[in-house]
């Protein structure tokens, strides 16, 4: 054991020696392996959810026919149940994502992060935080526009939920709503959040909030353009705006080795993905681009004057948008529910979807905890003078490649 002022005493002390460290690494890899293996086995047992839902629906139809239930009731059930499953998913996922972000941030900074709540590496930390937020006092500042102040979190959160309607969570149409213009719908609805942020900034009766709201509006409107244009090549190759259709367009292998995912398309795919990633981070107001809530300049930007559950709504919306951007990236660039090689087809498609999505979520978190914040004018310059021209060049390049193939 290492002696000296920095040596650790107590039952954990052996972890400080090289052998102890190696043992700890092996142990954590084993624990993670068992956990992930267990989840994988469980998912293989479950199989394709679309098949399950199909069976359940067939069973329901048969029962309805036997008992004389009207057809509209069945339609209502088939609409409400998938939507509530997706809604529940979006409300539960941020709990996990916040914990994951805390742990990754801590380990990037060579800390441990939450370790106490929930016994194992603080898994229940975010649930405790959520309970705390629910119990907190709801403060409305004097001079605030009470109605708009109350409506703003709702306007922020509602589009974040609606956006998930056409996202395919796996193969076989595993989406809440089948939509032919899914991509357009998602991009269009997610743009509505700007209004909520502006409302929050304006109604708070606080100069920092107004500045934050205006900054958020300027930033989100600007970055929406390169984001949309970066997705154009995908649509050009896929020939459809439906997310399921774009996912299915990435089926198969190139020369039997490389999966036909859009990120592996020469040059165009990589540029598209990079521009999409950068502008998605800007859209979600996360750190290299978080001038809208810059703590050191604007205290908290548009949500300075919010507390308790209203504040948590903004947080929920941020994480929902992060998951949405990651899901879009997974579907459009990483083949969504398709396994990379046909040999891995025994793993159901929703596992592939979530694995790819969480990989992109990890990219988001990794980038957030690596880079400092951009200055306001540099941020705008970067969008209009760099991302936008290059996304246009990218579209031209994609058109040229398509022309060459014909």
């Amino acid at each position, binding site marked *: 054991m290492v002696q000296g002022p920095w040596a650790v*005493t107590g039952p954990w002390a052996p972890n400080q020696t090289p052998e102890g460290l190696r043992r700890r690494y092996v142990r954590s890899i084993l624990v993670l392996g068992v956990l992930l293996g267990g989840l994988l086995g469980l998912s293989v047992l479950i199989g394709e959810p679309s098949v399950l839902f199909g069976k359940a629906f067939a069973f329901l139809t048969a029962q309805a026919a036997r008992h004389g239930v009207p057809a509209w009731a069945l339609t209502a059930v088939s609409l409400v149940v998938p939507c509530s499953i997706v809604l529940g998913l979006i409300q539960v996922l941020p709990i996990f994502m916040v914990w994951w972000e805390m742990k990754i941030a801590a*380990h990037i900074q060579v800390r441990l992060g939450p370790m106490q709540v929930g016994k194992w590496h603080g898994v229940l930390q975010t649930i405790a935080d959520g309970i705390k937020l629910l119990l907190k006092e709801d403060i409305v500042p004097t001079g605030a526009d009470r109605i708009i102040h109350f409506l703003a979190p709702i306007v922020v959160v509602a589009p974040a939920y609606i956006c998930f309607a056409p996202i395919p969570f796996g193969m076989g149409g595993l989406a809440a709503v089948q939509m032919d213009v899914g991509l357009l719908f998602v991009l269009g609805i997610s743009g509505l959040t700007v209004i909520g942020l502006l409302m929050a900034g304006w109604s708070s009766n606080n100069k920092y909030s107004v500045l934050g709201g205006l900054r958020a509006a300027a930033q989100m409107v600007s970055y929406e353009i390169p984001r949309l244009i970066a997705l154009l090549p995908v649509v050009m190759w896929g020939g459809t705006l439906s997310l399921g259709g774009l996912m299915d367009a990435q089926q198969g292998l190139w020369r039997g080795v490389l999966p036909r995912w859009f990120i592996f398309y020469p040059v165009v795919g990589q540029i598209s993905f990079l521009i999409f990633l950068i502008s998605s981070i800007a859209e979600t107001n996360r750190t290299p681009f978080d001038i809208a809530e810059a703590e050191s300049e604007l205290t908290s930007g548009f949500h300075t004057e919010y507390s308790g559950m209203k504040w948590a709504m903004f947080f929920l919306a941020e994480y929902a948008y992060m998951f949405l951007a990651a899901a879009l990236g997974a579907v459009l660039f990483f083949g969504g529910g398709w396994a990379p090689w046909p040999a891995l087809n025994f793993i159901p498609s929703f596992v592939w979807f979530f694995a790819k999505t969480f990989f992109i979520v990890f990219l988001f978190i990794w980038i957030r905890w690596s880079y400092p914040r951009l200055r306001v004018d540099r941020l705008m310059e970067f969008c209009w003078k760099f991302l936008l021209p290059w996304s246009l060049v990218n579209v031209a390049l994609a058109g040229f490649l398509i022309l060459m193939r014909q």
Partner: protein
Amino acid sequence: MSYFKTVGGNAWALGKGLWITLRHMFSPAITVQYPHEKLNLSDRFRGALAFHPDICISCDMCVRACPSLCISLESKRNEETKRKDLQWYKIDFAKCNYCRLCEEICPTKPKSVHHTREYELSFTNRKEFLQEWRPEAPQPQGSDVGQIWNRFVTVGQKLGPNPKTNGSSTPSAPAAS
């Protein structure tokens, strides 16, 4: 051309930054989980003062040595033994600056007033800072905080013997003297 050079250089720098954070993510955390894990104290760590009324000869040396006037005691001359008997001994922990002058000046062997390796001492109000010892009851008197303090002392002793001072958790005298 210089445009592409700038873009490439910046992209390279950004990638390097990501690589550094990724490398740090997989290096072991340096966090010491305090209530469960504790750092080793330095050899001559000066923790809370402890006092032994049965050893004390009431010579007043520590009272005079104390630069912050935190120690006070009262003694009474015993006509039979021709010695001073200790009446009470008080240390005001609000004033103590943990300088070890009282321990250095103490003439008894072993030292009757000395620093422990206890650093988790805490009080809940100002009166409790003033700890009092009496010969008939060798533990701090005056309030139930005395018992709390004793609990802390036992926790401090659980830190284990200091390997460099031969098993004694209270170094008897500085190495220089």
